[in-house]
C-alpha cells in the first residue's frame, strides 16, 4: 500500500553549538516494524529522536516520516507520528484530564471522537485514578502513563518513543508491550529507545545501535543474537559500544 518507508533518516548530523553529537546517521524503517533504538548514555539517541520530530534543529541530512519532512511540512508530518519524549512532555500544572483534552484540540479531533478516544486511553493506560490530579503531584510511572496516553491519543501510524518504559511498573510494561505489538500487527511502525534489552530482545523485529553519534549496528534482532556466543543482546551491545573503540566507527552490521 505504501511505497515509501515509514521513517527515512539520511545523513543526519546534529550539533549543539560547535559540537557535533550525531554524525551522518542513516536508516529507514518499514511499515509494520518495531525497531529498538539502543546505545549507551550520551550516544545521541534522544537527540536523533528529537530531530526526527522537528524539535531539534539539524545541521545536515534529511528526515521523512510517512513521506513528510518534519521541518518543511511540519504540521502534516506531526499528524503522522506520535512522540513521547524522555522528559515526559507534560505541563506540570495541568491535570491528565486537561492534557488529554488539550492534545485532542491540538490534533483537531472531532469532539465525539476525542471523547471516546480519551475514555479509551484512560482505560488502556490506567490513569482513571489520578485523572484530575495535577501532574506535579504524580509519580514518575503515573506521569509516563499520562505521557503515553497523550502521545498516542490521535492514533498516529508512526510511534516514536524515547524510553517509554522508564518508570512503568510491571503491569504498565506488559500493557505497553502488547500495545506495541498490536500496533505493528495492524501495520503501524514503532521506533523506540530503551535500555531494557530483554524487552527489546523479545519485542523488536529489528535493532539500531548507536554509539558516539554513529550507527554501529542495524540488523534484525535474530541476526544480532546469532553473533553473540551467549545469544544475548546485551553482550552484542556492550561489544559494539565500548568507549575504547573511539569515535571513528563504521557500521559493523
Amino acid at each position, binding site marked *: *500500500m*505504501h511505497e515509501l518507508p*515509514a521513517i527515512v533518516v539520511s545523513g543526519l548530523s546534529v550539533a*549543539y*553549538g560547535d559540537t557535533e553529537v550525531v554524525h551522518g546517521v542513516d536508516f529507514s524503517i*518499514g*511499515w*509494520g516494524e518495531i525497531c529498538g533504538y539502543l546505545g549507551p548514555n550520551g550516544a545521541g539517541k534522544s537527540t536523533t529522536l528529537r530531530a526526527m*520530530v*522537528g*524539535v531539534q*534543529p539539524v545541521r545536515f541530512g534529511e528526515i521523512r516520516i510517512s513521506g513528510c519532512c518534519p521541518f518543511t511540512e*511540519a*504540521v*502534516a508530518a*506531526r*499528524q503522522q*507520528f506520535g*512522540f513521547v*519524549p524522555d*522528559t515526559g*512532555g*507534560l*505541563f*506540570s*500544572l*495541568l491535570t491528565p484530564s*486537561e492534557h488529554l*483534552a*488539550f*492534545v485532542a*484540540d*491540538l*490534533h*483537531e*479531533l*472531532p469532539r465525539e*471522537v476525542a471523547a471516546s478516544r480519551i475514555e479509551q486511553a484512560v482505560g488502556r493506560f490506567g490513569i482513571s485514578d489520578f485523572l484530575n490530579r*495535577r501532574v*506535579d503531584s504524580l509519580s514518575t510511572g503515573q506521569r509516563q502513563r499520562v505521557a503515553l496516553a497523550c502521545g498516542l491519543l*490521535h*492514533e*498516529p*501510524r508512526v510511534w516514536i518513543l524515547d524510553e517509554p518504559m522508564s518508570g512503568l511498573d510491571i503491569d504498565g510494561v506488559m500493557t505497553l508491550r502488547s500495545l506495541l505489538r498490536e*500496533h505493528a500487527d*495492524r*501495520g*503501524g511502525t514503532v521506533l523506540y529507545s530503551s535500555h531494557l534489552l530483554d524487552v527489546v530482545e523479545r519485542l523488536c523485529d529489528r535493532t539500531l545501535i548507536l554509539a558516539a553519534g554513529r550507527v554501529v549496528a542495524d540488523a534484525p534482532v535474530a541476526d544480532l543474537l546469532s553473533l553473540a556466543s551467549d545469544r544475548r543482546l546485551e553482550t552484542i551491545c556492550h561489544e559494539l559500544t565500548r568507549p575504547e573503540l573511539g569515535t571513528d566507527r563504521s557500521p559493523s552490521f
Partner: protein
Amino acid sequence: MNSPAPNSARTAVPRSEAAGDRFWARLGVQSRSFRALVFNYLLIDLRAQTYAQATNSKPGDAIPPLYWVVSQFLALSLLLCAVLTARVPAEFLAATHLLVTAVMVFSAVLVEFHEALFSVEDFRVLGHRPVTDRTWAFARLTNLGVYIGLVTLSLTIFPTIVGASQPDAAWSWGVLYPVASLSVAMVATAVALLVARTAGTPLEGLRRIASWVQIIGILVLFYGGQLMLRKGSGELEMLASRPPTWFGVLPTTWLGGGVARGASTHVIIAALFALVLSAMVVLRLAASWRGVAHVVTIPRRVEYAPLRIAHSLSESLRLGLIGDRTSRTLAALTSRVFARDGDLRTRVYATLALPVAGAVLGVLTDQYAAPGTGTLGQQVPSFAVPMLFAVAVVQGLIPLLSSRDHAAAWRLHATWGPEARRGVVSYLLFRVYLPIWGLHALLVAGLWGDALAAVEYAFVGWGMVLVTAHLAARRLLSAPILCRSPRLGSGAVVHPVTLLISSMVATAIGALWSAVSLMPGGGWLLGVTLFVGGHIVARMR
C-alpha cells in the same frame, strides 16, 4: 503490509465558529489549537507557576504573579496620585504617570511575564505537536496581551479618575488618558519583545537588570513619595514647574502634555504608532517563533571550576570564613550556589531594600543621629535601621532553603547539623551582609563626624544581627538547604512566624540598646554581650 487507516478526522468545525475560523485562517492561525493554547496558558498562569518557580515556594502557598503584580501596581499608582494630585500641574501629573507606566510595563514583560513568551516547558511539551509557528506565537502573544491589559488597567484606573478632577485638566482627560496609557503600554511591550527577540540567550542578564529597575523604581516611588508627603516644603512644586531637561524630551512628557491640554491629535498619533509598532513586532515574532523560542530556551552547556573549600587558616581568612571542616564545606557550597543562581542573589539582595530605604529617609529628613545624642525622634532611624537590617538577614535566609541546585541536597542529609547550618549562615552573614554593613558604618562615620561613635554603632548593630540571624537559622534551617521545593506541610507558617519572632527579638534588643546608650560604655557592653550570645546560639544543638 497494510498500514492502519490514516487519521481521518481533522474535522469539520461547528458553524458558529466558522466565521471566526475563517478570520484566523487568513492569518495562518489554526483556530481550535489557538483557543486551546490560550485557555491552557491562562489556566497554567493562574495556577501560580511563575511566582512559585521564582520564589521556590509551593504553588498552593504562593500568590499568583498576576494578582501580585496587579495589586502592587495599583498601590503604586494610588501612591503616586496621592503625592502628585493638587500639587503639580495636570501636564506633569500625566507625564509622570505615563513614564511610570512605560517603565513598569517594560520591566514586567521582561521579568514577570517572561515565561508567558518563551518557556522551556512549552517547547518540550508542544514542540512536536501539529501547531503552526504562527498559531503558537499568536497564542503566546494573546496570553501576554491579557496580562498587559490587566497591568495597564491597574496603572491607569487611579490617574484617570484623579486626573479628571484636576482643575487645569481638559474635560477630555477621562477619555484621552486611558488611550494614552494603553498606547504607552503597547509601545513598552513591543520594545521589550524586540529586546527579548534580539537578546537571545543573554536574556537572563537582561531580566535581572529589568528586575532591579523594577525594585529600585518601586522603592523610589514608595519612599520618595512618602518623603515628599512628609517634607511638604514646596520642592515637588518646584520640580514640577522646572522639570529636568531629560524629562522634557521624553515622548511620555509630550503625550502627557497633549492629554492635559485635551489635544487629541497627540493621543491619536501615539495610538496609531503603538498599533503599527505592535503589529509589526507581532508579525515579526510570529514569522520566526520556533527559531526564537529555540534560541531563547536552549540549555547552555556550562562548566564550573572545582568547589573551593578552605583547607588552611590563611585560606579561610582569605575566603573570609573560619570554622570547622563541615561549616567551611557548607559555606563553600553556599557560595557556589550563590554564584550560580542569579535569582537567588536577586532575592537575597532585595531584602536590603527596607533598611536602605530607612537609612536614606532618615538622612534626608535629618533624623539619623548617633545613639545617645539628639532627641528621641532624631534617634529613631538609627535604632530602626539595624533592626530592619537584622530582619533583612533573616529574610535573606529564606531563599536559601531551596535552590536550582537541589540535586545536591541528598548529600547534605547525612551530614546536616549545627556545623552545617553555621556554615550556611556564616557565608550569608560574612560574605554578603557584612560588607554592606561595613559600608553603611563608613557612611555613618562621615555623616556624624565621629568615627568612634560609628564603630560602636556598627559593632552593636552587628551583634544584634548575629543573635537574630542565628536564632532564626535554628528554626528555618532545620532541614538541609538546596531542596527543589521546600515541603513545609503543616509548617507552612514557619516563615512568617520566624520573621515575626525575629522582628520581636530585634525590637527587644533595640529597646535595650536605646536604654543603655545613655550609660557610659553601655553600647560597648551590649555589643560584647550580643557577640557572645550570637556565638552561643550558633553552637547550640
